[in-house]
């Protein structure tokens, strides 16, 4: 039996669904690359049997997009069975959204419901934030994949009427010295991917004139086959102009680039494991970026917003028009009628379903009243942007698409937006790891030098400087601090000319801990993002979660995802830091195996007066240096163990109650002007953090490990390199010590040394002997050399 029949007068195919057997459903699925399960197709079949007809290819494709992992987050919103007696009904609702609901922060304006989360900022303005993943496209075409990732997340911000003001990016690559001969076919060398991805990010952000202000680069073996690309963007909008009042009768306007075959089935591709054939299959999934088009689009959208000409807006990303059109209608409880022939094409020959699914870049969908249409189109024309009315919202709750005067889709909105809930099985494994038997090395200075040169700690200056982090002229705490380009903990922006309030952006990510325990990895990522924010003066912190995981059909992978979500709930609530937006990328598996489960936490805070912003480098000779927070023997997953070829078991935990007290006290000290410099302790622990503070400034440090508050540690190397969470180093002016110590009473805050004129790091060990003694320029050189051969001056 022929399953696909081309209708004689049309460019659509009638799919013989109504009479199809299960086996035939599977054939239809693969023939049309729908990416649906047979069970899902049976639901579709039942629907069309009831309608008493067969669907067109357009209808099936529209359903497949709406039901894709990417669009409806089957895993996060589906059922998860753990063992015989536990069922989680939606990870998202049970953990992430629940935390936000419970915290109930009055400054949250819009969470999880729009293209980006929105929080209040100042003077009637809100801040919108979003972080996206673009892993699969970047694996196939690193430059284009990363560039369109940036372009996509910027459109998410435009998609809530906000003017994008800064980008962030967090990247994960395989080791740059990976042996070529070990690369399986279809996997690109990490160095090639690294160069392409970083170039893609800088090109898009720089061309659009949006500063890239914060990020991280992380190296892990598992990223060799699964490059990890998180692209973030924050924007600012007058809250009174956050228009979302579309209704039946309003016109749909498609604006921006023309539509071609770019990226068709990108959505289904994103939820498939990468194989050797991915390159072949994915070619059409690769999109070409045109940042200048988006720059013009941005100008027009901001003007339309300010003149209040639009009634709703959304970006066109994964799933193309199908997602944007469907979601807009659904959101305003309408149906929609679109004439696909009105869509401006790059070239002729696209089938209606291709027009509807195309993921061509730099496009936005707006709605406006018929009265405002002319004015809206004029704004786009002025900016030299193509814009076309392609249809309208209608009362009847149907998706009506026409092409060449014939109806090619006419289905219930209800069907599109009530996918059958998926059900998966998770298995939670108790971590089984042991501590290595590692003798203490005799030369700890050498170990410190090696750690500073370790790829995850080493300076990323050569990449950061290819990103314009100062365009717009509002970046007041830059990613690299001072003459020696030290690593600041967070970026601070001054978004409004008429306000001294600052916006603080930071991130946290600890994939290595997740190999031991995903729960503590997630807790640590939250703690790290928070403390990075707090270290520069941030508070009132909102969080964004981005999960990059392996195939969730595999119970153990899903189990670790459940554990990470549990920690997200526990610590968001503990720190009263609500999640406002998030995104997941699952199915990151390659011939080299699954990705290391990776949770990126992005933190967006505020600082009431930018004058109180704190940078990380030492300020003045003879100032005392304090360590806040206790050091535990927590070396599991640390860079120190990694250097010695171990993973270990003692993963850093987060002692939430204590951490919260520490955070509060630091904010208070900063507000009282008692903090001269502050730096958080992360990879490489105390030794690396103190070295960074010193070599970023040119002033030396003299420390005494005997003073460091520890628990159950009797080894110098563990005190130096433990990665216990919630710890900070703070430099205080000599005259302020009494006041500072009073404020910090009971917070585990101890004076461990002082700033010296002599440019070297000097550390006395637990037995009073010198254990580290190194000139700053040597430390700095080692830190810079690994990834910046040209920058070592």
């Amino acid at each position, binding site marked *: 039996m022929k399953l696909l029949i081309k209708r004689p007068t049309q460019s659509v195919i009638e799919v013989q669904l109504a009479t199809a057997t299960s086996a035939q459903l599977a054939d239809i699925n693969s023939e049309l690359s729908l990416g649906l399960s047979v069970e899902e197709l049976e639901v579709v079949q039942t629907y069309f049997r009831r309608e008493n007809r067969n669907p067109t290819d357009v209808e099936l494709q529209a359903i497949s997009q709406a039901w894709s992992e990417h669009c409806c987050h089957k895993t996060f919103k589906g059922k998860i069975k753990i063992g015989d007696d536990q069922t989680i009904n939606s990870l998202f609702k049970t953990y992430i959204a629940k935390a936000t609901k419970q915290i109930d922060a009055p400054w949250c304006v819009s969470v999880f419901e729009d293209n980006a989360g929105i929080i209040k900022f100042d003077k009637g303005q809100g801040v919108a934030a979003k972080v996206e993943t673009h892993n699969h496209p970047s694996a196939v075409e690193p430059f284009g994949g990363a560039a369109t990732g940036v372009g996509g997340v910027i459109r998410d911000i435009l998609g809530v009427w906000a003017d994008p003001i800064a980008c962030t990016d967090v990247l994960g690559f395989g080791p740059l010295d990976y042996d070529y001969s070990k690369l399986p076919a279809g996997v690109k060398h990490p160095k090639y991917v690294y160069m392409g991805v970083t170039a893609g990010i800088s090109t898009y952000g720089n061309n659009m*004139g949006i500063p890239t202000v914060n990020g991280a680069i992380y190296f892990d073996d598992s990223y060799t086959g699964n490059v990890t690309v998180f692209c973030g963007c924050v924007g600012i909008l007058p809250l009174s102009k956050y228009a979302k009042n579309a209704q039946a009768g309003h016109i749909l306007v498609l604006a921006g680039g023309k539509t071609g075959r770019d990226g068709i089935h990108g959505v289904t591709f994103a939820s498939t494991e990468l194989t050797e054939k991915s390159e072949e299959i994915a070619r059409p999934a690769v999109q070409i970026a045109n940042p200048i088009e988006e720059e013009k689009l941005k100008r027009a959208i901001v003007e339309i917003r300010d003149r209040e000409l639009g009634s709703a807006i959304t970006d066109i990303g994964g799933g193309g028009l199908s997602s944007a059109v469907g979601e807009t209608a659904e959101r305003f409880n309408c149906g929609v009628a679109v004439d696909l022939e009105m869509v401006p094409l790059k070239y002729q020959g696209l089938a209606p379903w291709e027009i509807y699914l195309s993921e061509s870049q730099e496009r936005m969908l707006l709605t406006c009243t018929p009265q405002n249409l002319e004015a809206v189109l004029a704004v786009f024309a002025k900016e*030299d942007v193509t814009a076309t009315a392609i249809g309208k919202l209608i009362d009847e709750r149907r998706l009506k698409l026409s092409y060449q005067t014939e109806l090619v889709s006419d289905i219930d909105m209800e069907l599109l937006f009530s996918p059958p809930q998926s059900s998966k099985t998770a298995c939670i494994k108790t971590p089984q790891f042991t501590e290595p038997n590692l003798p203490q090395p005799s030369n700890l200075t050498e170990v410190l030098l090696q750690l500073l040169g370790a790829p995850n700690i080493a300076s990323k200056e050569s990449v950061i400087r*290819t990103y314009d982090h100062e365009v717009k*002229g509002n970046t007041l705490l830059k990613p690299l601090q*001072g003459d020696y380009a030290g690593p600041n903990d967070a970026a601070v922006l001054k978004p409004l000319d008429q306000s001294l309030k600052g916006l603080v952006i930071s991130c946290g990510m600890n994939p290595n801990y997740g190999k031991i325990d995903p729960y503590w990895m997630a807790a640590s990522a939250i703690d790290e993002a928070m403390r990075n924010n707090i270290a520069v003066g941030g508070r009132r912190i909102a969080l964004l979660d981005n999960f990059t995981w392996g195939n969730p059909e595999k119970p153990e992978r899903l189990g670790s995802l459940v554990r990470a979500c549990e920690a997200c709930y526990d610590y968001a609530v503990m720190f009263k830091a609500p999640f406002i937006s998030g995104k997941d990328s699952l199915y990151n598996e390659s011939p080299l195996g699954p990705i290391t489960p990776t949770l990126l936490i992005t933190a967006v805070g505020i600082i009431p007066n930018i004058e109180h912003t704190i940078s990380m480098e030492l300020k003045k000779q003879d100032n005392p240096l304090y360590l806040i927070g206790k050091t535990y023997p927590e070396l599991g997953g640390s860079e120190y163990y990694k250097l010695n070829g171990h993973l270990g078991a003692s993963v850093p935990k987060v002692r939430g109650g204590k951490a919260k007290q520490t955070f509060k006290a630091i904010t208070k000290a900063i507000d009282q002007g008692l903090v001269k410099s502050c730096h958080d302790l992360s990879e490489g622990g105390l030794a690396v953090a103190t070295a960074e503070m010193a070599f970023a400034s040119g002033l030396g440090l003299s420390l005494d490990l005997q003073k460091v508050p520890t628990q159950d540690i009797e080894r110098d190397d563990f005190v130096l390199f433990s990665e216990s969470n919630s710890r900070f180093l703070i430099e205080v002016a000599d005259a302020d010590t009494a006041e500072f110590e009073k404020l910090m009473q009971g917070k585990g805050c101890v004076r461990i040394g002082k700033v010296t004129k002599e440019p070297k790091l000097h550390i006395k060990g637990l037995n009073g002997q010198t254990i580290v003694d190194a000139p700053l320029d040597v430390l700095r050189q080692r830190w810079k050399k690994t990834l910046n051969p*040209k920058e070592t001056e």
Partner: protein
Amino acid sequence: MNPQDIKVCILRAGGTNCDAETQRAFQELGTQAHTLQVSELIKHRNLLDYDVLVFPGGFSYGDYVRSGVIFARHLSAHLDKEIQSFIDEGRPILGICNGFQILVEYGLLPGFEGISPVPEAALTTNEPAGFKCKWVYLKQENQGRCLFTSSIPQGKVIRLPIAHGEGRLLFPKEKEETLLKRLVEEDMLVFRYCTKDGQPANGQYPTNPNGSFYDIAGICNPEGNIFGLMPHPERALYWWQQPNWTRQNQMLQYGDGKHIFQSIIDKLTKT
């Protein structure tokens, strides 16, 4: 003329992206600054209504063909006469980063003999190659010709950020020596990359961040009313934009970038 009477035209095209902060700098110092889309200027406005013309930074037209050339050719195709009159009257033109590239491609800079039909210089791929965003030190070398540096003493070292991939100024190899001589003799040199204490970079990276000929970061035309520079003064206007402000106890209100805007305002208000 009072500052508030000065009308500044900040001209943008698709891909220009430093117009807002450039406009803010001129407004901060009391002038009327307007950002105009180039088609708006061509169709609806008169260039000669403005006292200062500014080409801000960005990636106009995606920097296709060569940075700045499409903007330059587009403008000369439509507004050649107006631009000529603007210059003949000695009105000032400033080009920052991409704006400098536009002025060079237009033939306005160096402009040894007025507007040149073909570019007399090039701003091309950095050496070492690649986009670079960082703060640099610049020595003010102009003896008084340049209208945009009149309030910066000759020999003074200032600090501004750069952010470009194509900022290496070069001349035809065979004319380098002669042209340099003219630049010096006609007081067209303005900024050169230098060390913190004012020593010449001598072409050495990273003090000279892009391999620019004779460490040149900015030049003016022989009349001194057209000035182009690769660094961004509009990003060094306020105290909090300075890279080292967190180290200072007493912060100055403004950064070094202010002098460039203030110089031209002073010139115009005194005439």
